[in-house]
């Protein structure tokens, strides 16, 4: 759609600007303030320049947390995206009772409060009272997510797959539904294989929504806090201490405001950078589709 130039449109955006400035810019400036100052209490602050940033960038602890976080996000994306596409391809196409039921049940995990997701899996995985833990134990597999860090990782990954694959499914399903029937008929006439249909019809049509899915899954898995916090509390040891958990420990647990603030800014910038790349690609393909 061709848009007209109208500078007065700013007035319509103004309420959003004021609100977001209050809830985003003011807190962000507080963080920036802390990141360049030190304090001995009593509300006396003095300037330390970039010291905290240097400390954070050289801190082993944060490197480790970043490494774990990156590994976690990569594993999550490699499982959830293909699995989501696969399930979406099998979603019922005709609308009816079965398709409504599928939609509601598939979407259900997305609406459960995150700490309840944690609680569900905390219970589900316990060896004494949880179905999963009990079964694994009966099969003779040594599984205890509070002591074994490999088990803790598996639990958290399966939990995240359980929680968020549905998002990818729903997005891809919406993309698939927008493909006109004529495309499939044409493919049938050409006797295209199932793979060819997927590769040359379905995948290109899903490209837009897939980018959004990857963007959202990247952002949210990179910010994950509540679920692992409830299930493992970052343990055993530091095995599942992801960036957000580490940050909250640092800022609220130990009250190391300076390093925590510097850490926050770096953290935010990393997310911003990656998301910006995705966003640019997304907008680019968006405009290409339209022209």
């Amino acid at each position, binding site marked *: *759609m061709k*848009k007209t*130039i*109208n500078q007065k*449109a*700013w007035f*319509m*955006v103004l*309420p*959003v600007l004021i*609100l*977001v400035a*209050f*809830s*985003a810019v*003011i*807190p*962000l400036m*507080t963080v920036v303030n802390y990141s360049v100052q030190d304090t001995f209490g009593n509300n006396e602050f003095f300037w330390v320049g970039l010291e905290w940033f240097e400390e954070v960038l050289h801190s082993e602890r944060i490197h480790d947390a970043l490494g774990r976080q990156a590994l976690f996000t990569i594993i999550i994306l490699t499982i959830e995206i293909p699995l989501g596409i*696969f*399930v979406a391809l099998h*979603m*019922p196409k005709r609308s009816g009772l079965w398709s409504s039921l599928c*939609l*509601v049940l*598939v979407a*259900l*995990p997305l*609406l*459960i*409060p*995150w700490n309840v997701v944690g*609680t*569900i899996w905390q*219970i*589900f995985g316990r060896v004494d*009272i949880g*179905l999963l833990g009990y079964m694994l134990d009966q099969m003779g597999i040594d599984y205890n997510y509070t002591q074994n860090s490999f088990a803790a990782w598996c639990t958290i990954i399966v939990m995240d797959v*359980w929680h968020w694959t*549905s998002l990818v499914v*729903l*997005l891809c399903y919406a993309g698939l539904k*927008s493909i006109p029937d004529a495309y499939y008929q044409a493919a049938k006439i050409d006797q295209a294989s199932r793979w060819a249909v997927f590769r040359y019809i379905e995948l290109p049509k899903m490209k837009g*929504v897939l980018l*959004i899915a990857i963007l959202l899954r990247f952002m949210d898995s990179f*910010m994950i*806090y*509540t679920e692992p916090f*409830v299930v493992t509390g970052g343990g055993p040891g530091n095995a599942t201490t992801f*960036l*957000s*958990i580490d940050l*909250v420990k640092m800022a*609220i647990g130990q009250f190391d*405001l300076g390093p*925590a603030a510097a850490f926050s800014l770096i*953290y*935010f910038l990393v*997310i911003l950078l990656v998301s910006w790349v995705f*966003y640019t690609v997304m907008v680019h393909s968006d405009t290409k589709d339209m022209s």
Partner: protein
Amino acid sequence: MKINKSALVMSLYILFLMLPIYWLINMSLKTNQEILSTFSLWPNDLTFDNYLVIFTDASWYGGYLNSITYVVMNTIISVTVALPAAYAFSRYRFMGDKHLFFWLLTNRMAPPAVFALPFFQLYSSVGLFDTHIAVALAHTLFNVPLAVWILEGFMRGVPKEIDETAYIDGYGFFTFFRKIFMPLIASGIGVAAFFCFMFSWVELLLSRTLTSVDAKSIAATMTRTVSASGLDWGVLAAAGVLTIIPGALVIYFVRNHIAKGFALGRV
């Protein structure tokens, strides 16, 4: 044959999704003694006591009321301010519009952990700590951008000729917006409201940081109970089941638009 395979895949996936939830419901209907002593796939000794505890104890049901209060406040605030902004983005070009749009999205990317402490200090200093409005305002951080994005996506689908015709017919902007435009994007408003509701409902970190007693959310009540009074598994499971119900109810009404909403209105 093909239909059967699809049904099989879907059934397996849904089974995977439902098992943990079933287990939670199963536990919520057992006594603590049964939970810890015997392992059974269904409650042998069916009891609703755990639910009774929640409905009679003010610290429990108060948590639900607090959560619903700030969630509704947040939804109303977010959608109200997002409507005119989304209209502006979908209809006009103005200085810095593209940058502004991306900047809004960056707030959706900001990890709540980054904002927890500054929010605590900000709302304490203006005397809003432990009030519903504080949590509602804090959640606008990610809900307003989301609402703008979703609404903009839906508004783009409404042809501009409708606006122009209405103006020619002598409608003022506000009458046009209320009488003609809002009904046209009613489903978009519904989806945006649903998403604001949902993300405010599922969030824990900010609501826990910003409340202590008077406005304590159900999510915070649940995590604190776990750490404080030992492990009352039955009640915890019952509380969990009750938090799932509102979502399950609302989802039915938006099921046909939900994917479009998740795609930020861009399908």
